[in-house]
């Protein structure tokens, strides 16, 4: 996160302005103020591009682990990117990371909510399975095929464990999955996770400990 985390948003803008003044002369068609504005916009776009390029894969994976659907995951990432750019581009670059994580988690939470509602509606018509309406991804068929990431050089046992882990993560209820992934993938502490999930620290601890307990049960076969 080179540009996003260096806190050099102001410095970059100043350097950009200096470069304009020294290297480029205003033309009749474009006054200096206009050039400055355009240069600032380009500079901001470049910084945002770098930031989002660093975030997009992880964001997609977080969304995919929740939805298990490529299109849904891409839509969540798209919403998060657009919201960050449209609403928070003017914020200091150092704030983009926490903001983007929070927006993304909020989008994932909304996805869970919508899914839960639609499952309940379908259950009224008797079209949902028994697990419908529990608020998470646990209703997904546990035998559903996953996209395998097994490498040829990987130990088959490790590969099996990883697939089981992915299935178990996907089977966690939404909030539990969010709490666990924010800790595991982003390394967030309780307070950071609570901020990203917009809930209390107590709730984070509860979600996390339940997630951990469920994962241990689901992966019991791999315990040595």
């Amino acid at each position, binding site marked *: 996160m080179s540009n996003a985390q260096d806190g050099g948003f102001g410095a970059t803008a100043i350097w950009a302005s200096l470069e304009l003044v020294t290297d480029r002369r205003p033309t009749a068609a474009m006054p200096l103020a206009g050039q400055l504005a355009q240069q600032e916009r380009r500079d901001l776009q470049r910084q945002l591009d770098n930031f989002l390029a660093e975030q997009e894969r992880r964001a997609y994976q977080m969304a995919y*682990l929740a939805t298990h659907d490529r299109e849904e995951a891409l839509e969540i990432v798209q919403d998060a990117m*657009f919201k960050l750019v449209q609403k928070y581009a003017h914020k200091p670059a150092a704030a983009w990371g926490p903001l983007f994580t929070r927006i993304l988690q909020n989008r994932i939470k909304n996805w869970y909510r919508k899914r839960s509602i639609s499952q309940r509606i379908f259950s009224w018509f008797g079209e949902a399975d028994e697990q419908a309406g529990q608020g998470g991804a646990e209703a997904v068929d546990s035998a559903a095929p996953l996209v395998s990431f097994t490498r040829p050089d990987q130990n088959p046992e490790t590969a099996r464990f990883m697939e089981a882990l992915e299935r178990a993560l996907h089977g966690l209820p939404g909030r539990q999955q969010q709490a666990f992934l924010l800790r*595991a993938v982003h390394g967030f502490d309780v307070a950071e996770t609570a901020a990203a999930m917009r809930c209390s620290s107590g709730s984070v601890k509860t979600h996390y400990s339940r997630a951990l307990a469920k994962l241990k049960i689901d992966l019991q076969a791999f315990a040595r």
Partner: protein
Amino acid sequence: MNEYETNKESSLNEQQLLQQTEELVAAREAQLDAGTLSRLHRIRSEALTTVGGRPAKQWLPVAGAVTVAMLVGVVLFLPQQPANLNPETALVTGLSEQDLELLVGSEDLELLEDLEFYLWLDSQGPLDRPS
């Protein structure tokens, strides 16, 4: 220090799970297919085009204000309506000061959005009222 207050006995398993999960996500990131990466790139490019641009809805109040200003201008500069209009016609075709106050002072743009309907209503002539 582990803030999550898991017991010591299970802490090793917890660490393993956390580490394996991180590895899992990293492995999947590294193996994203070209199609998904292309889509992500396109989404990012599209999002970046909105830098510095106003959200679409922000121009609505401006458009409303311009419409009101034009309406006021038209009413002020048009010649006075004949005095012998019946009350029903006057209700529709003539705008009194009170009407203008309502139009200009109202923060609700619903009336402006229905302006086309009111203009059409005006063009239909006097209203027929049931006796």
